[in-house]
């Protein structure tokens, strides 16, 4: 049985194409078969314990396997950076496809897996194009729309016509022997070869990093020329069916009209779907977990609907993505937005990989290979030559009207970047063999052209770009000042156009922005986000988030987060904000130096802000004692919260933090921390020399016995309020002889710490409280945590869990703790829930556990 199962994949597997589409059908058949088996029971002699049902799972199994193989291929290829630096990934994937195809061929003597148009156009292409549309830099795209349209429409028509006619001419001249191809068929072939392929262009240009205008010209052209390709292909396909004699002016005019209908209809349909998605995301507040799905489903529907109406599906899905990006990003929850972004990338990248692998596999098939040297070489030659001619001629015209002309070198790269890809292959396979006798020749020529452009031109693109010194895209970090200045700049340009009385590009854009702001946002955005959705503000927000995140990462890296909650943490920031800033600013200005320290530091390793430095410093002298103190405080006030919330599973939502006050506070604090960090620098803290990592065990050993006991007593006595414990801890430090730095920490720490990040510490806390402290604390820790501390612990385990992974699995802390910290085993208090956290009284804690 096993042998058979090994052979079957190759033999029984329908070509993947039919496979996928037939999957559902076959599955249902299988299901009925299964039902029959169990229902009738007549054929069963005994109860099977295990049966092997390959056919039952065959199709989905194969699909999954192929996806896995393609993914692994990509992984292997990407592991060798020195190879991918020279040869683009797409080329390597195609080569990998050759090998796989060879293996399949060797096993079956027939190519069972090829890239079929159905699979390609219905299951692999849409997500790539949706991804392109969704991540389209809109301003750049629409700013260069004119040029892109010229290249996409006229350029593509030119490519198709010139290739078809030249080949026909050469045929007549006898350059390629005896072929049964007429003029119309040549034109049909020309039209399918004409289009620059978006998949190939993205794959190659992504790794070259040319300047953004050049990129958007090539990329935009490759996306928009689909409308033209579809029309040309359909029209010539119809002409071929009609036959030469039937074609008259009316038919040709019909063809031209159909172009406009197909292209604009497709775009319009995409636009409508984009609006639909935007409207939908306006009201998905209660089903946040599935809202990302809408984007994909509606995007796909846009594609299919266009296909159904024989409009341009690619244009439709592109414009769907382009239109909805702004509104859905604003409407949806931040988590959903990142879900969409990542899923988009996963799907697009996956399909791209699949496409290239299968392009390679498809080649290993004897039946399609028909060699005609003249035809193939001439096609290659004409494609290159006419692409160059077309680009140069069109650019020459465009440059007379463009404000910033396209340079000569950019034109060369544009011409050279005219890669053909899977779209051409898909169209070639779709040709009707009955009407076109030389279909196989066309397919093999298309494959050759695809391999040549993707592999050869792909490989040479990078050296060429370097050699010609093409202006590269500047690698810039997102900075606030740039965004602000950009905005200023835009307004200046508009104003100058207004004053000088010109109706230019800026004027139109401004009018559109105004319209969009006033009407579209009103209709498509949630009222709550509409106001705060200024671009500059969102950049500000992003930068703040980044800072906060790297702050936490850095803190964790250093092994100690001195986040301490105290009174000042609960200031109403909303009110105080303004004052805070004006008060903080002089300090900041005076103490820029430390920022620079941090900034330069950031380049070496991501130290987000100076505030950490301070921690470092205070850690120097009395790291252990301080840690204990910190953990003590943290545990006292955090532990309860966590215990009260057990792990809960829900399909419909993550346990996200819904406390708005808290979210707001987090944001405001990160913002504040940027400033506060400078303030704290005033204390004259030297930047850290080394980052010392210390092991937890060391710490336990270092711990001086008597001292810690002393201290523990001293601070456990005063747990009623934070303020009290703060003072107390300071007194604890008196014993160790340096009060000042601690005070500094406490005071300035108020602005830096972020309660949201506190959970980060938890995993280590149990270990750091030595056992002897435990006992002490049991004695003395009968004081209930302050009311306030309890009330103000809105952190739910969900966000703790995210930060402390191993907690997630451990429902009870006992096992974790005992396993991790043998020291705690000393305690024989089985009845007491384990948390070695100092103060909360046992009774209270029990309550928490119940």
């Amino acid at each position, binding site marked *: 049985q096993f042998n058979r199962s090994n052979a079957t994949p190759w033999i029984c597997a329908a070509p993947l194409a039919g496979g996928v589409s037939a999957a559902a059908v076959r599955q249902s058949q299988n299901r009925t078969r299964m039902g029959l088996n169990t229902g009738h029971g007549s054929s069963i002699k005994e109860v099977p314990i295990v049966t092997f049902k390959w056919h039952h799972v065959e199709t989905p199994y194969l699909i999954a396997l192929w996806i896995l193989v393609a993914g692994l291929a990509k992984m292997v290829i990407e592991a060798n950076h020195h190879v991918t630096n020279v040869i683009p990934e797409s080329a390597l994937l195609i080569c990998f496809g050759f090998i796989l195809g060879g293996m399949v061929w060797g096993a079956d003597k027939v190519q069972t897996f090829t890239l079929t148009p159905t699979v390609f156009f219905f299951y692999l292409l849409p997500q790539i194009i949706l991804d392109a549309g969704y991540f389209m830099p809109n301003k750049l795209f629409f700013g260069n729309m004119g040029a892109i349209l010229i290249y996409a429409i006229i350029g593509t028509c030119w490519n198709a016509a010139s290739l078809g006619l030249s080949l026909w001419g050469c045929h007549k001249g006898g350059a390629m022997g005896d072929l049964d191809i007429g003029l119309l068929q040549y034109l049909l072939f020309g039209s399918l070869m004409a289009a620059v392929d978006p998949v190939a262009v993205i794959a190659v240009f992504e790794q070259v990093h040319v300047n953004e205008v050049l990129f958007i010209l090539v990329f935009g052209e490759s996306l928009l020329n689909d409308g033209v390709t579809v029309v040309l292909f359909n029209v010539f396909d119809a002409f071929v069916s009609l036959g030469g004699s039937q074609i008259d002016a009316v038919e040709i005019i019909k063809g031209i009209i159909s172009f406009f209908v197909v292209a604009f209809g497709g775009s319009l349909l995409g636009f409508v779907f984009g609006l639909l998605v935007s409207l939908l995301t306006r009201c998905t507040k209660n089903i946040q977990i599935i809202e990302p799905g809408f984007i994909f489903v509606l995007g796909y529907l846009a594609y299919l609907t266009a296909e159904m109406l024989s409009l341009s599906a690619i244009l439709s899905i592109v414009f769907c993505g382009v239109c909805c990006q702004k509104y859905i990003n604003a409407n949806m929850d931040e988590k959903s937005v990142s879900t969409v972004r990542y899923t988009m990338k996963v799907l697009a990248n996956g399909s791209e990989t699949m496409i290239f692998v299968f392009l390679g596999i498809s080649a290993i098939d004897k039946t399609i290979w028909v060699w005609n040297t003249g035809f193939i070489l001439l096609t290659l030659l004409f494609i290159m030559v006419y692409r160059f001619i077309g680009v140069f001629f069109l650019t020459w015209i465009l440059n007379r009207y463009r*404000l*910033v*002309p396209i340079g000569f070198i950019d034109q060369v790269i544009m011409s050279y970047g005219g890669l053909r890809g899977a779209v051409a292959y898909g169209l070639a396979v779709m040709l009707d063999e009955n009407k076109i006798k030389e279909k196989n020749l066309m397919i093999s020529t298309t494959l050759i052209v695809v391999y040549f452009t993707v592999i050869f031109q792909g490989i040479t693109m990078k050296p060429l770009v370097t050699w010609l010194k093409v202006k590269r895209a500047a690698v*810039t970090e997102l*900075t*606030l*000042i*740039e965004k*602000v*200045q*950009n*905005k*200023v*700049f835009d*307004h*200046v*340009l*508009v*104003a*100058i*156009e*207004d*004053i*000088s*009385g*010109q*109706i*230019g*590009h*800026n004027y139109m854009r*401004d009018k559109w922005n*105004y319209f969009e702001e006033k009407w579209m946002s009103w209709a498509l955005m949630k009222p709550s986000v509409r*106001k*705060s*959705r*200024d671009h*500059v*503000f969102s950049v*500000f927000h992003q*930068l703040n988030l980044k800072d906060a995140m790297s702050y936490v990462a850095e803190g964790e890296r250093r092994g100690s987060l001195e986040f301490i909650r105290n009174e000042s943490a609960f200031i109403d920031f909303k009110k105080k*904000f*303004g004052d805070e*800033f004006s008060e903080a*600013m002089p300090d*900041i*200005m*005076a103490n*820029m*130096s*430390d*920022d*620079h320290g*941090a*900034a*330069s530091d950031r380049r070496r390793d991501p130290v987000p802000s100076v505030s950490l430095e301070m921690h470092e410093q205070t850690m120097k002298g009395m790291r252990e004692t301080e840690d204990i103190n910190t953990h003590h405080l943290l545990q006292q006030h955090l532990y309860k919260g966590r215990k009260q919330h057990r792990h809960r599973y829900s399909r419909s939502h993550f346990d996200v933090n819904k406390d708005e006050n808290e979210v707001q506070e987090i944001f405001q604090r990160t*913002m504040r921390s*940027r400033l506060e960090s*400078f303030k704290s*620098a005033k204390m*004259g803290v030297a930047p850290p020399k080394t980052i010392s990592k210390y092991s937890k065990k060391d710490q336990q050993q270092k711990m001086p016995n008597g001292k810690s006991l002393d201290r523990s007593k001293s601070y456990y006595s005063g747990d009623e309020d934070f303020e009290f414990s703060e003072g107390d801890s300071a007194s604890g430090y008196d014993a160790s002889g340096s009060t000042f730095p601690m005070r500094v920490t406490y005071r300035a720490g108020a602005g830096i710490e972020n309660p949201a990040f506190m959970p980060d510490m938890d995993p280590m806390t149990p270990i750091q409280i030595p056992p002897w402290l435990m006992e002490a604390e049991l004695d003395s820790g009968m004081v209930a945590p302050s009311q306030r501390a309890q009330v103000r612990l809105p952190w739910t385990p969900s966000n703790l869990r995210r930060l402390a992974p191993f907690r997630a699995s451990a429902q009870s802390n006992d096992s974790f703790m005992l396993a991790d910290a043998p020291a705690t085993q000393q305690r024989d208090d089985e009845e007491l829930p384990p948390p070695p956290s100092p103060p909360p009284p046992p009774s209270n804690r029990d309550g928490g556990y119940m």
Partner: protein
Amino acid sequence: MGASQTRSEHKYQDLMDKTGFSVEQIKNLHKRFEQLSGNEETISRENLENIPALANNPIRRQIIGAFFDKRNQHQNEVGSFEEIGFEQFLMVMSHFRPPTLKTTEEERETMRKEKLRFLFNMHDTDNDGTITLEEYRKAVEELLSKSGAIGQEGAKAIADAAMLEVASTNVPHMAPDDFYEGITFEHFEQILKGLEMESRMHIRFLDVDTTTMRCGRSTS
């Protein structure tokens, strides 16, 4: 008639040399100027403020201010005009002239500096060579005044954060007691490198006359 024609031609020639506009462009702009000023010799702030299309521009005040700023006339003067004539008007406009194919590298470089200087002057209201935090805050506040509920405090925070960025990128090593006074022109140049302002700070000055179209628009 013929004499006046040649005189105006002569006048235009002078302006062409100064600003680099073509005769047609100057003629067009002159028409626009007359339209704005109501056929007066000079133009005042009110004239510009009354342009309907400008009504939605949040930094309208700064831009109009730039027209009346003597620094933008390249005469090494400071202060501001009450009213400007056509020549001054043209000089300000010339900051936005796109380079032609004939422009040499050197000219490009000076154009670039001038363009950046123009933007810099817009922020540096007191002409002390630095954009101080106060000045910058004001500029950002104005810029964001039209965009929803960011509000003054948000704008302040943004201005502050942006200022910190400039300070940290431009002066990586400052002594603890140093005080970052504000953005100097050099720093300004540095931070705007990525934006490639110089290659984008153009608008198209048409050779053909569009004022008639504008007439219809502005009256409507």
